[in-house]
């Protein structure tokens, strides 16, 4: 392979280049399970170089359809000075990759990539040291080209130095990384390595795993969340050819068949009498339910001055409540896994975002030592948080254990919508006081959100089957960004952590951070309007002087969107179609990625229809590994969150979820997607932060603010449906 041509080919934007990569689909022998180090302080955990100089990266963070695999390859190839085509990635395999935490929180590059980079930098330094010995030269006098170390006295390849042997050294987080001017692959819009295979239908997803002797399973879920099995008639499916077994464990019921269609038919036909159950709150009174839920813990996330007193003494006071409903992940591909027991060991092929944690959960549920369990990641459909994949893995494991053969299990559409864990209801009360000049003198907010943080979301399978589980709720780190990025003289932000929430919660893209930013950024817009101030100028009053990157995203989004400086609402509200624009700003978790956005909307006064026509976004996540990958994430965040802002809302009876498909749980459609204009701020000398979540944070508030600008009416309850908009206009 011509290495020079090779790199040129990679860097050719838009080229149809396929770089081979392995995601561990091929079954590996049981012997491999414990052969490789997975401790995060060992270089050999992350990297190996074979006798031909090919580099294999082992990484615990996985590509959830975001393209981060390509980013990891760029990091390794650039830091080691090898062509990208020589780099292979193995992701999320508990036997072969380190536990770097779940792939969540916009941390894959920020944490996982930085760990990989340190391992590569350590390896490069060691390789140069070895080469210097071999070539009798000073390491500083050597350079590396395409995996070959070159000095004045000669050259030696990585393969010759270490090929095939483990890189036996500790990761040194201080090993020097390449300076920006020396980077040749990192920082460029390298085409994603997975795209050609996906476009030609050749990509292997978790849904596509096939094992010898494999059967197909389906879970038969109860019609009500807490219903129990009263009677089960196995004879009801005996007439369906291909049915192998009905499996019942507690209230977990599943069917296994020789073919997928037989399994589906059996799951539909199986006669089960379930108890009645109606333990859900009334949907129409969900916010009363939330307010009435016992509080387990009170967390004050910021506290400065005496805002209560300041608000009481203020010239003008404002208060408002913002709510954000329960959401389903509503993944495109219903959750799926393949499980196989062999020699007392369990292998699970899964699209879990946290294979190391899943292994522990399966061990707990099945009463197996985790050393006997291996979870291997394969891509599923886009995953924006802990969806149903772990549960499907547990279902498959239970069925495979029962029948003694490999089982592929996939949920049906209604299973996915009804039984995936939910983004919990999120309610925020806010109060502010303004002085005579419109300055904020005090700010108070109180969020009502479930207790818990990240962690292992209980397996539905274990819950239904009555098998061991942690029995805790974990909605994600949902308290962040209730504290504001502004220098108000007095502020207090409080999270009332509720003891329970109606549905098993989990994190969905930007969990809590988006809902809190929504409340804050819409409410500061209310303050700006009360002060008669331009919304961007008003925010700039309160941005800390020692944090210029925040000012920069706001100032640049104003230029990008051709922002007209004036207070909201706009003055001419006479026509049938009203137009407006709104801004929003977020410093993610107050410590990382900066993002600002402007939404432009049209509101039909008569019908209440709201259309977002354009959305501008400026984004600073520090160093960018792949700017086009960052841009794609920003676009995805905006479209996904517009869907959540306008359309998505879980519906439920007292017994069960009733939004169980794409007509009852509607999402954004192609004609509704606005033009999106993204400006990325590259800071190659800064540390890299995440881009998978932050841009979502600004979307609902920018929209709320744009609607207010257009109509003079403030929308505070997501989703913004035409009916709600119409009612708000008529009530104004």
């Amino acid at each position, binding site marked *: 392979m011509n290495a020079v041509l090779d790199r040129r080919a990679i860097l050719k934007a*838009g080229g*149809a280049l396929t770089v081979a990569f392995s995601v561990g689909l091929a079954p590996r022998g049981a012997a491999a399970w414990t052969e490789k180090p997975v401790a995060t302080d060992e270089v050999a955990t992350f990297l190996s170089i074979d006798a031909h100089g090919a580099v294999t990266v082992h990484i615990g963070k996985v590509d*959830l*359809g*975001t*393209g981060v695999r390509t980013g990891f390859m760029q990091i390794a190839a650039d830091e080691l000075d090898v062509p990208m085509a020589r780099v292979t990635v193995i992701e999320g395999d508990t036997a072969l990759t380190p536990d770097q935490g779940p792939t969540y929180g916009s941390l894959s590059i920020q944490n996982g990539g930085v760990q990989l980079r340190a391992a590569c930098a350590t390896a490069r330094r060691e390789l140069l040291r070895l080469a210097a010995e071999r070539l009798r030269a000073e390491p500083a006098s050597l350079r590396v080209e395409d995996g070959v170390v070159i000095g004045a006295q000669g050259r030696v390849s990585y393969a010759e130095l270490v090929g095939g042997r483990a890189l036996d050294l500790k990761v040194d987080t201080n090993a020097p990384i390449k300076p920006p001017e020396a980077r040749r692959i990192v920082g460029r819009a390298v*085409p*994603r390595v*997975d*795209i*050609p295979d*996906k*476009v*030609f*239908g*050749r*990509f*292997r*997803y978790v*849904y*596509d795993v096939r094992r010898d002797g494999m059967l197909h399973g389906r879970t038969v879920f109860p019609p009500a969340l807490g219903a129990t099995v009263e009677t089960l008639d196995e004879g009801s499916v005996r007439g369906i*050819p*291909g049915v192998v077994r009905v499996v019942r464990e507690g209230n977990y019921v599943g069917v296994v068949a020789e*073919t*997928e*269609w*037989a399994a589906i038919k059996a799951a539909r036909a199986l006669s089960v009498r379930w108890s009645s159950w109606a333990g859900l709150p009334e949907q129409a009174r969900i916010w009363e339910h939330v307010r009435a839920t016992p509080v387990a813990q009170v967390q004050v996330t910021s506290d400065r001055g005496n805002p209560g007193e300041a608000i009481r003494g203020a010239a003008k006071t404002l208060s408002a409540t913002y709510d954000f409903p329960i959401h389903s992940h*509503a*993944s*495109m*591909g*219903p959750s799926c896994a393949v499980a196989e027991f062999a020699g007392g060991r369990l292998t699970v092929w899964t699209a879990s975002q946290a294979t190391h944690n899943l292994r522990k959960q399966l061990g707990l549920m099945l009463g197996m030592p985790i050393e006997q369990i291996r979870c291997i990641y394969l*891509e*599923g*459909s*886009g*995953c*924006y948080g802990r969806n149903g994949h772990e549960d499907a893995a547990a279902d498959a494991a239970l069925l495979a254990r029962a029948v003694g053969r490999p089982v592929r299990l*996939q949920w*049906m*559409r209604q299973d996915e919508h009804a039984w995936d864990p939910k983004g919990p209801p999120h309610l925020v009360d806010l109060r502010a006081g303004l002085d005579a000049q419109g300055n904020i003198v005090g700010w108070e907010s109180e969020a009502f959100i479930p207790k818990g943080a990240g962690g292992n979301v209980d397996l539905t399978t274990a819950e239904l089957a009555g098998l061991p589980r942690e029995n805790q709720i974990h909605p994600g780190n949902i308290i962040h960004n209730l504290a504001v990025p502004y220098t108000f003289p007095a502020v207090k932000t409080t999270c009332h952590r509720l003891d329970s929430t109606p549905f098993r919660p989990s994190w969905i893209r930007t969990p809590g951070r988006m809902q809190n930013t929504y409340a804050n950024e819409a409410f500061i817009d209310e303050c700006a309007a009360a002060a008669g101030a331009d919304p961007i100028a008003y925010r700039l009053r309160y941005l800390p002087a020692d944090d210029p990157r925040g000012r920069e995203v706001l100032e640049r989004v104003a230029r990008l969107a051709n922002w007209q400086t004036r207070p909201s609402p706009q003055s001419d509200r006479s026509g049938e179609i009203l137009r407006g624009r709104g801004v929003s700003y977020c410093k993610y978790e107050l410590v990382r990625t900066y993002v600002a956005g402007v939404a432009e909307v049209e509101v039909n006064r008569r019908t209440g229809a709201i259309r977002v026509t354009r959305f501008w976004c400026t984004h600073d996540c520090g160093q960018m590994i792949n700017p*086009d990958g960052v841009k*794609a994430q920003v*676009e*995805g965040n*905006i*479209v*996904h969150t517009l*869907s959540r802002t306008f359309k998505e809302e879980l519906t439920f009876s007292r017994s069960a979820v009733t939004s169980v*498909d*794409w*007509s009852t749980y509607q*999402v*954004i*459609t*192609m*004609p509704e*997607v606005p*033009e*999106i204009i993204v400006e990325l701020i590259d800071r190659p000398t800064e540390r890299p932060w995440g881009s998978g979540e932050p841009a979502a944070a600004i979307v609902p508030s920018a929209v709320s603010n744009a609607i207010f600008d257009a109509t003079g009416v403030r929308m505070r309850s997501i989703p913004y449906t035409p009916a709600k908009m119409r009612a708000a206009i008529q009530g104004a």
Partner: protein
Amino acid sequence: MSENVQTTVNGRAVTLRAEDADMPLLYALRNELGLTGLHYGCGLAQCGACTVHLDGEAVRSCQVPAVQARGKRIVTLEGLGTPERPHPVQKAFIEEQAVQCGYCLPGMIMQSAALLARNPRPTEAQIREELAGVICRCGTQPRVIAAVLRAAQA
């Protein structure tokens, strides 16, 4: 009762086994022929992830009984084009990097290819309308639109 169905898939004469009169084409293509370039998304013709061409028309294979494929020409994403001879839509999707997870691609690409066969120069609004029934959760829609416009101008 199971029956054999003679049909043509990606230019090849094949015999599919329909387990009964209701079995969707989706399962025959995925599980008997190993054609994983179409995905189960909803089984309700609501999302588009299982789209294939049946005699040149984009259809939802989750709603077409396998027995109805008898004597028809089926093309899946695998058969639309290859890396060596990509369909213009496939080429444009790569050039625009119009993919995240890719689960929606059978819908996005097969529906767009059918549109371009009918209407080689669609407007952006026509493309959006054509793809209104194809769901994408990752938010690749802006790039998909750009890709189909690019393919139409190729």
